[in-house]
């Protein structure tokens, strides 16, 4: 009988000290992920406290979308793609 489907689980790297980012990078990363649809827009009435895990989730979504290694941290390849000039529309439509 035909073989059944097997999925390999992706291997999720934990954030490593080498990838710690500065508050400025964190803020611009957050703005970028929010602007282009990888993080929900903050609710202006309720403020926007974002957990570290949510931020990593946004990075992971960006990395998956563009087939980067899914590390969940703002590593070199991720931030260099984010620095490229680009179209102003979101990547993921609300």
């Amino acid at each position: 009988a035909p073989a059944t489907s097997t999925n390999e689980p992706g291997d999720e790297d934990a954030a490593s000290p080498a990838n710690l980012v500065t508050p400025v990078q964190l803020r611009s990363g957050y703005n970028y992920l929010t602007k282009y649809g990888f993080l929900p827009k903050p609710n202006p009435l309720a403020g926007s406290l974002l957990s570290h895990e949510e931020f990593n989730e946004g990075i992971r979504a960006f990395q998956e979308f563009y087939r980067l290694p899914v590390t969940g941290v703002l590593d070199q390849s991720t931030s260099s793609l984010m620095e490229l000039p680009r179209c102003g529309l979101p990547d993921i439509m609300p």
Partner: protein
Amino acid sequence: RRYAHTGAKWDRREITWKIRNYSPDLTTSEIIDALRNALQIWGDAIPNTFRRVHVGSADIEISFSVGLHQDDYPFDGPGGTLAHAFFPGDDLGGDAHFDDDEQFTVNAYEGTNLFIVAAHEFGHSLGLGHSSEITSLMAAFYQGYKPNYELPYDDHVGIQSLYGARQGSIPSLPDVPIAGAPPGPPRPDLPVPNTPEPGPDPHCANSYNAIAKIRGELMLFKGKSFWRMNMKGEPLEGYPIDTSRFWDQLPVKLDAAYERIDDKILFFKGSSYWEYFSTNRDPSFPHPIRELGLPDDIDAALPWGDTGKTYFFKGDLYWRYDEIKKEVDSGYPKKVADNWDSAVPSNMDTAFRFIDVETKTWYTYFVRSKKYWRFDESRGKVDKGYPRSFSEDWMGC
């Protein structure tokens, strides 16, 4: 990964466009030419036409502005966001705005190439979202100046899924490569051959050489023609078209075709096979099929999901090929009747898998001449009531 639709599209063939103002970076005619060429890159793929208007409103209104301008999305100075556009609709719908803090150029690697930015934004104006295929025009990032630009495969597929394919023919290349000739897409500057019109109803061909699921869509090949089907298994408008309009020097009268687990597309004919990356042929092919450990020619190829296994059929036998180990699994060939179902035809024309979008059930379909058999993978049996007429059930004949 591929193109994305937004659900919005223009419901008329002729789409109007208008330039509201000009950037000081270029002459007026440079801007007009760049924008016209950017629209035409889409116009070459779909039946729609673009007419420039000078007064009144237009579907696509183009303007150059800096910082805060007449929408809620202010530009951000040099770099960063270069432009944005709105999906088809009223008012701002379809409009494209360019950040005039950029230094727009034409036909040059320096600065920001207006043509490529405009071509991307007009993709939005026609209803496409951002593609995750990084090499496509609709990827979000600036791609730089590219001379002799051709619409990439992913964008071609995407826009034709919205508006159908442009009728008319583009000169076809010889189906056997001329020794030493560089591969490449069709050259529109060649005279158009007077190819005879296909028969009375091209959808109702008696049989098909190969049917394959490529980038999520069913593609049917017969002779020199090919069809594309939508997710419901209905032929896309404007098809069949000449394979040379889409594929780079694809042989005619194929035996089999399939998309491999690494996204490469393989075509088989006689004792040779070819490997393509999207629509571009790997120049190191053809190779002999025999190098895969298969017989000299095959009837059908059937990739099995993401297992990395591909089944090849010939006569009443089948082989299971391991794409990772690049060899036929031991113990093959085996008899189709013994391991699939005795109802599965020998000497088939083609085989493919397709999911029934309503019931979310995967079926394997075996096609021979005008008939097809539906194999229920969960039961391991051909369903009752088969074979049925392929053209009637699938092509609406």
